[in-house]
């Protein structure tokens, strides 16, 4: 009988301990967190139209203007995906808008991309929320969203001066985190300004530019 107890103990230890170890390792992982392959890679280029102007004079664009990602090489670009039906977007909105104004003098560009929503609903939401410092763009067919590997809103991508995705925020952005990131990018890669031009604005470059 003594033998059996010993055996049972060994078996429990042999099977139980690894199982518990495996399960407890599993507890440290968040299955809802999906690592994006984008950070460190070139940011997907897009060309999208403005449907809301943006309140900050340094960031403002006119309705109908076109934003071409390729023309923003050399600049830090923050791409925020949002929707009027998205609750978390309300949480981050004010902080994001303020951060955009704060960093506009440093040449950091912010764009909001409307995800699976109607422009009218987006405009209504923006006026309800007290406006937005940076322009909002529409994304028909969610093509840009898919190109950025979006799986929910809000998600925010920070593109550095080299045109690479520096970071992806999932969920509401904490302005403090955003400031830390932008500061470090400005410090590491120098000022945020368009490549190969002294003019601060290069919105109307020909589409066939060398894209570097």
């Amino acid at each position, binding site marked *: 009988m003594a033998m059996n107890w010993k055996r049972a103990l060994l078996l429990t230890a042999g099977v139980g301990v690894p199982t518990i170890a495996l399960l407890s390792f599993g507890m440290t992982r968040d299955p809802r967190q*999906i*690592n*994006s*392959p*984008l950070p460190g890679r070139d940011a*997907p280029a897009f060309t999208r139209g403005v449907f809301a102007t943006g309140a900050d004079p340094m960031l403002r664009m006119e309705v109908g203007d076109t934003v071409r990602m390729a023309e923003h090489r050399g600049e830090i670009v923050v791409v925020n995906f949002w*929707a009027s*039906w*998205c609750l978390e977007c309300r949480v981050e909105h004010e902080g994001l808008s303020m951060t955009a104004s704060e960093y506009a003098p440093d040449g950091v560009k912010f764009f909001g991309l409307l995800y*699976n*929503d*109607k422009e009218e609903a987006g405009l209504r939401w923006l006026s309800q929320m007290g406006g937005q410092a940076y322009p909002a763009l529409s994304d*028909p*067919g*969610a*093509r840009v*969203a*898919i*190109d*950025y*590997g*979006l*799986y*929910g*809103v809000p998600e925010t991508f920070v593109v550095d001066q080299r045109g690479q995705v520096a970071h992806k925020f999932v969920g509401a952005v904490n302005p403090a985190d955003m400031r830390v990131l932008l500061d470090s990018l400005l410090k590491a890669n120098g000022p945020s300004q368009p490549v190969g031009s002294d003019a601060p604005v290069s919105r109307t470059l020909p589409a066939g530019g060398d894209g570097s």
Partner: protein
Amino acid sequence: MIRRRATRSRLTTITLWAAVVLLAPWHGAGAQPAEPGVVGATGNTAAGSLDGNTQTPLPGKDPVLDERVKAVSKVLRCPVCQGESIQDSPADLATQMKALVREQMASGQSEEQVLDYFVAKYGQWILLEPRAEGINLLVYWLPVVFLVLGTGLIVVVVKKWTKPVPATDV
């Protein structure tokens, strides 16, 4: 007589037990448990007017393309659903992804190229069935290893238990 019966019932228990143990990993490694529409997540809105493409043949016009699109859509995970493919999901994003798959395939891309595109954007996570490479190989081979080990264990144990016992029981 009594001994023989006891042995047999023991054998049955072992066999059943072994079956459970052996089948468990197979089950785990098998297809994704389909749980359609448990959580709506963030995907569903009333915005139905957002169609990006117009020059791709519409569904129904090109049966061959339809089949190819379907085959790819079946293995792509809908990001806003729970374990559902974009083929099965009615969510907006799934529909838009399907439209993109169709457009890419209509423009001559292969199944592999389309899948690679989505993997580059979303990571391996977007594939409902993990690719048999790297650490994923464990999922494919561990069950086989367990099967072999388990069978060996059963053989050894059963042999031991069915060995005639010297009559020195107390």
